[in-house]
């Protein structure tokens, strides 16, 4: 066994193995903490929903209709007010979401801030507790990630390990909340890490397993979907499932753009951001008096949507549109919370609608109604969170039904690629690209565009005053063994660069007395200190020379130093190598 172990990791001795095992253990520990945090969060939301007359059970058990109506409007409105106050305490004036986790991991920035994380969790808790139409998995994922990152900082681990502990927290949160460890592991890799290195896999798996164990011990919940009979769909129905996938991608797109659109609209409203969630809450409560299905996470609505005949056809369309609108309103106007649970409800309603329409066409509602509901659910959720495999695994782990999973697979086959082509990889990626972080070209670009060239700044170069004559300049350059000089005036301002070859030619032509200022190289690109390596590489493509000057952007083009072409190449190789080690490390 030992020899195999050392064969596999030839570069690492026993110390490396012990270190790696330590990381796995630490992943498990993060799993315990994240799982208990998730259990506590879920329990607190349920308790708030019961106490604040949001859950149908508490509404039914409450005997005073007048107070119930008042509470339906007042609770989301007051909840919104509190959420607005919480967001005021966060630097960005918005709750942090899984998108922030993805950004931190993809750019290897790591280090999720603990205070903003705690406030975001609080905002999610208040939003969900007060019945806003938002999801609970987003806050859970962010909370798990923050705990993981905090753990890495306490142990002073490196960036790669920080990323892994973040993924551990995420996996444990999903494994606990869904009671689905495989989905937790795959989600952490598919959405957060976006690579499948063994070094990350083991700690993440440990965390998810522990999350699952804690979930089964502490949280007792029924299966999300229950397939009573062993009804198997007809072969032609799989064609319907694929079509649902295609259409579901469009529903997912409308959902994502509705959220973003309301967000843009809210910016233009003449209302303080502090009060926007309260307004959304009041509107939500008012609508809920008419259609209570839109209140909260919609657990009951989700269940009804899987039952043939629970909704009429028109009713399905109304509830679907209202739920979509309510979620866009809540998230766009600034409630905290996730996008996944509402997407589950909307998708399931959409699938139910497809099943009902098909039933109308063929004359009888299909026995396989639940298949349509689940296909719709996957077709909408997978594109929204950018995780087709995770969505499939959630179906598989929650139902234990292989047939149902295959039907969902048929649906997701079209849903994810169509949505990715039309809208983007996920709502998170769209949000990040709006914030200026483009992940569509993969992680390499993301990391390089976050790393500034400042770190590779070099003062070891020849600087000359612009009024130096050519003969003196050639002599200085020759003695220094350099091919280029940079012209800097006594005030420190940059005036271009000259090459030894040009100056030699000018001297040969008999212009040795002239000042070098006239011989600067045309169209020489310059860099700023915060220019990213990615951008520097782009400028390097039409650059021939030895080094690029770095000039302060803000002040009067003060010369700061140069960056040699070789440094940029070295920086690129170094970052690629770090990524390669992180993404392909076996232990």
């Amino acid at each position, binding site marked *: 066994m030992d020899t195999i172990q050392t064969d596999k990791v030839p570069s690492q001795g026993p110390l490396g193995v012990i270190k790696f095992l330590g990381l796995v253990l630490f992943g498990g520990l993060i799993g315990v903490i994240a799982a208990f945090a998730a259990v506590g969060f879920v329990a607190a939301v349920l308790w708030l929903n019961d106490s604040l007359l949001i859950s*149908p059970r508490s509404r039914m058990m409450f005997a005073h209709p007048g107070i119930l109506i008042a509470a339906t409007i007042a609770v989301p409105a007051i909840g919104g007010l509190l959420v607005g106050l919480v967001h005021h305490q966060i630097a960005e004036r918005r709750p942090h979401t899984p998108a922030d986790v993805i950004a931190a991991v993809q750019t290897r920035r790591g280090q999720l801030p603990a205070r903003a994380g705690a406030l975001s969790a609080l905002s999610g808790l208040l939003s969900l507790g007060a019945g806003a139409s938002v999801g609970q998995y987003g806050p859970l994922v962010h909370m798990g990630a923050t705990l993981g990152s905090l753990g890495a900082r306490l142990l002073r681990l490196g960036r790669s390990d920080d990323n892994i502990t973040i993924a551990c927290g995420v996996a444990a949160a999903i494994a606990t909340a869904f009671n689905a460890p495989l989905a937790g592991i795959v989600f952490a890799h598919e959405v957060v890490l976006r690579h499948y290195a063994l070094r990350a896999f083991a700690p993440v798996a440990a965390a998810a397993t522990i999350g699952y164990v804690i979930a089964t011990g502490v949280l007792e919940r*029924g299966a999300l979907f229950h397939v009573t009979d062993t009804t198997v769909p007809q072969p032609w129905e799989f064609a319907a499932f694929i079509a649902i996938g295609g259409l579901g991608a469009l529903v997912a797109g409308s959902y994502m753009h509705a959220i973003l659109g309301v967000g843009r609209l809210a910016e233009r409203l003449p209302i303080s951001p502090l009060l926007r969630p309260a307004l959304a809450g009041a509107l939500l409560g008012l609508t809920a008096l008419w259609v209570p299905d839109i209140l909260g996470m919609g657990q009951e609505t989700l*269940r009804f949507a899987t039952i043939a005949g629970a909704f009429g056809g028109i009713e399905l369309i109304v509830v679907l549109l209202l739920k979509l609108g309510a979620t866009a309103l809540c998230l766009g106007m600034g409630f905290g919370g996730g996008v996944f649970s509402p997407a589950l409800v909307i998708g399931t309603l959409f699938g139910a609608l497809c099943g009902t329409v098909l039933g109308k066409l063929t004359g009888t509602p299909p026995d396989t109604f639940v298949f349509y509901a689940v296909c719709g659910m996957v077709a909408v959720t997978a594109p929204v969170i950018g995780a087709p495999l995770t969505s499939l695994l959630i179906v598989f782990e929650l139902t234990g039904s292989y047939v149902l999973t295959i039907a969902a697979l048929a649906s997701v086959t079209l849903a994810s690629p169509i949505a990715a082509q039309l809208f983007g990889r996920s709502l998170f990626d769209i949000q990040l690209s709006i914030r200026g972080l483009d992940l569509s070209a993969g992680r390499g670009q993301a990391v390089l565009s976050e790393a500034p060239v400042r770190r590779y700044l070099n003062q070891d170069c020849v600087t000359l005053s612009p009024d130096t004559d050519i003969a003196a300049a050639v002599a200085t350059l020759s003695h220094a063994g350099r091919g280029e000089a940079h012209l800097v005036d006594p005030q420190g301002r940059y005036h271009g660069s000259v090459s030894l070859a040009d100056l030699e030619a000018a001297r040969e032509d008999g212009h040795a007395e002239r000042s070098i200022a006239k011989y600067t190289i045309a169209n020489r690109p310059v860099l700023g200190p915060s220019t990213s390596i990615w951008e520097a590489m782009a400028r390097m493509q039409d650059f021939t020379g030895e080094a690029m000057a770095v000039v302060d952007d803000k002040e009067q083009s003060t010369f700061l130093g140069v960056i040699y072409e070789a440094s940029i190449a070295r920086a690129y190789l170094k970052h690629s190598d770090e990524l390669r080690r992180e993404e392909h490390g076996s232990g």
Partner: protein
Amino acid sequence: MALAERHVAMVLAWLLTGLAIPAAGQEPASLTVLSWGGAYERAQQQALFAPFSQTTGTAIRVESYNGGLTGLRQAIEDGNVPWDVIDMTRNDAMAACEEGLLEPLSPEVVAAAPDGTPPEQDFIANAFGQCSITHTVFATVVAFRRDAFPGQRPTSIADLFDQQSFPGPRALQRTPAVNLEWALLSYGVPREELYGLLSTQRGLRLALNRLDSLEDIHWWEAGDVPAKLLASGEVVMASGYNGRFFDAIVNRDLPIQILWDGQVQEYETWVIPQGTRHPELAKQFIRFATTTEQLTELANRIPYGPARHSAAMQVSTHPDNGRDMRLHIPTHPLNAERAVIKDDDWYAHTHHRVEERFQEWLSR
């Protein structure tokens, strides 16, 4: 001080029970138990009361009642409570506790299982109320005539509503409780979500639609009616209490079979009324009556499930007729696979509205 003394006395009492030696000089007190009479009381007499007297030397007097809190309320008002221990449904026990009619009862009264499993793990969930300790479980189940379905037999609660595969009239209790639960279960709703869904207009409508689809329902109110309707062949499937059906099968040779799928469980508890004269003796009795051994003995005589897993696993044959009692108790793992636990709290708060809706539907 008084509390501390009581604790000491309690510990002493436990020790004495454990050692099975009556204390020298202890007054020969007698304990009065209020129970339900009939076959149930006969079984309790053999399984609990007689062995307790034998072990402790305390005589037990038994009185019987038909449930409810009126008698207890009156007795406490009069300042003369003749009972030390009462066998009460959990519904009543919860209400009585809120009214302050009962002594608080700590879970510590109860003994661990023979293998050392602590009571919290051994007892079914929520067995320990503020003033009550749940000891047995009874169930409302569906029974059907075996001869009515010679081929395929009903196996799932959804079959109650499937008159195409299982034709014939049904008998159901004239209450929303149990019927609504079964109606939603037949749609494939997991039991954990029943009361959440029944809390919505959509859920109630869905459940009543399902009941609507049944043709020829005989509504019953008294507990002995379903077995009679089955016996006379007026209906082929009926809901009813599992003890009554067991009695009909064993003592009257009725050719019926119980469908355990979707059984709705309710609970019996032991409580101590305020103003009892022998509170410590009462606790001593409850500790004895809820041991794994005694609960097993009881379930061997009447098919009400022990509220603790260790006892449910040990139930064997009826000492008189040799019947395998395991097949007849609601809490046996095989029977309880898809058992619904009636949400006492939900019914306590929604009873009027649900009942109103049900009556409105009935009178259509």
